[in-house]
């Protein structure tokens, strides 16, 4: 099966507008640099032909944009969804965040996206241009000239530990119907669990102190779609831009992760957009792992309408004291 490429998607997007299936398309266009591809709404075939791009840096999950875009008119919005994005799509539907009738979803198969942090680690800073042919990534930097890197060396962590290559929601599928994968995504969580308390504290203090409170992780998250966010409340004691005290970092991150616990689909967007490269997904995965061990396996977004674990209970649920011990020892 041929890998999905830009030409195929441009053709499809144009076709959907031309035949009246949708009156606008959610896709990707080039940003400031080659690697910061940005989500965009396309209203005309002309615009699609000029600006639509797709490639190995199109990690952005478009599902969240449906919340606002579907409210803007009566016509349908066409959207391209990678397998992990379809889970977010389902989760948003479960929470009734948009009207399914107003969306035409095109599922696209995916073999993993590139991570610009990994590219920078190998090629160095000052990237002027990047291009990928699906096998090799050509990078041109200000200081070191041109370099060629194997694409497989710069695949994002979330894609290496992908939970599912299967599109779970679509009106039309491009490419192969993938499979749910038994990945090693909890390995790092287990590793941290097996550290000593002091080591864990040190690990997170080190990571979280890098946070500049840009709020990108919150803004990008398809599970974070509240109209009013607790962190915008001046009384929340975590509304500051740069955290003024290490308490604020912890507060922000614990609460951010907690608010999506049970609803986080593990799409990995939070870690992707973090300019400080903080492994936020590990916090989310800790919650997912705990939910799996305490209450049975649950994948948010696998089905529309499933009840999230935190708005559910059974009479025999584990007690918090035991849960903490279990969360520590499980797989340690």
């Amino acid at each position, binding site marked *: 099966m041929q890998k999905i490429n830009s030409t195929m998607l441009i053709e499809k997007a144009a076709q959907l507008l031309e035949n009246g299936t949708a009156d606008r398309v959610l896709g990707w266009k080039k940003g400031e640099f080659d690697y910061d591809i940005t989500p965009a709404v396309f209203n005309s075939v002309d615009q699609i032909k000029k600006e639509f791009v797709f490639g190995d840096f199109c990690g952005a999950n478009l599902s969240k944009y449906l919340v606002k875009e579907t409210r803007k008119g009566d016509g349908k919005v066409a959207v391209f969804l990678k397998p992990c994005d379809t889970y977010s799509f389902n989760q948003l539907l479960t929470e009734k965040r948009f009207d399914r009738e107003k969306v035409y979803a095109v599922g696209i198969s995916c073999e993993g996206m590139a991570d610009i942090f990994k590219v920078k680690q190998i090629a160095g800073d000052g990237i002027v241009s990047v291009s990928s042919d699906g096998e090799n990534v050509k990078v041109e930097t200000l200081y070191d000239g041109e370099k060629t890197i194997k694409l497989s060396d710069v695949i994002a962590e979330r894609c290496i530990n992908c939970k599912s290559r299967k599109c779970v929601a679509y009106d039309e599928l491009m490419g192969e119907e993938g499979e749910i994968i038994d990945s090693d995504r909890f390995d790092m969580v287990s590793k941290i*669990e097996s550290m000593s*308390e002091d080591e864990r504290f040190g*690990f997170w203090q080190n990571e979280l102190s890098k946070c500049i409170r840009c709020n990108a992780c919150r803004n990008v998250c398809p599970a974070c779609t509240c109209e009013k966010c607790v962190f915008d409340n001046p009384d929340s004691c975590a509304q500051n831009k740069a955290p003024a005290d290490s308490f604020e970092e912890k507060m922000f991150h*614990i609460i951010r992760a907690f608010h999506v616990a049970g609803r986080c689909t593990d799409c990995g967007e939070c870690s992707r957009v973090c300019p400080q490269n903080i492994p936020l997904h590990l*916090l989310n995965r800790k919650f997912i792992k705990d939910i799996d061990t305490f209450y049975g396996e649950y994948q948010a977004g696998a089905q529309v309408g499933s009840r999230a674990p935190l708005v559910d*209970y059974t009479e025999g649920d584990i007690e918090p004291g035991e849960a903490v011990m279990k*969360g520590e020892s499980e797989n340690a």
Partner: protein
Amino acid sequence: MQINGEFKPLIVAFCCNWCSYAGADLAGNNRLAYPENVKIIKVPCSCRVNPMFILRAFQRGADGVIICGCHPGDCHYTSGNYYTRRRMSLLFSMLNFLGIEKERTRVEWVSAAEGAKFAATMNEFTEAVAALGENKRLEDLRCKR
């Protein structure tokens, strides 16, 4: 909290109106002693306790936080404490994951008839927190006097 140069843990106890708060009352009526540094905050139901309340208590100088509610099955609002149980299981496990001492947080079910259990729980919890010393890992230096 330092009192006259001696460390006394400050404990914040969230008690639900219908069982645990009445349990605390009963402990008082029966002249059962528990440490004066246990500060009780009455909430309508244990599930009113938002994770933010707990973190803010630590921020403002608490050394330990305990949530008390009706026994599972006895919640005045039928199921509030079942949600409390799930939320706190996950939250406490996360705090532990971040390296924050797990002994500083607890959930205990105390009925209106269990004055003795209330006093015993507070004594025991205060002692456990005292053994840990001051809360350093979730402190906010701006809130220190």
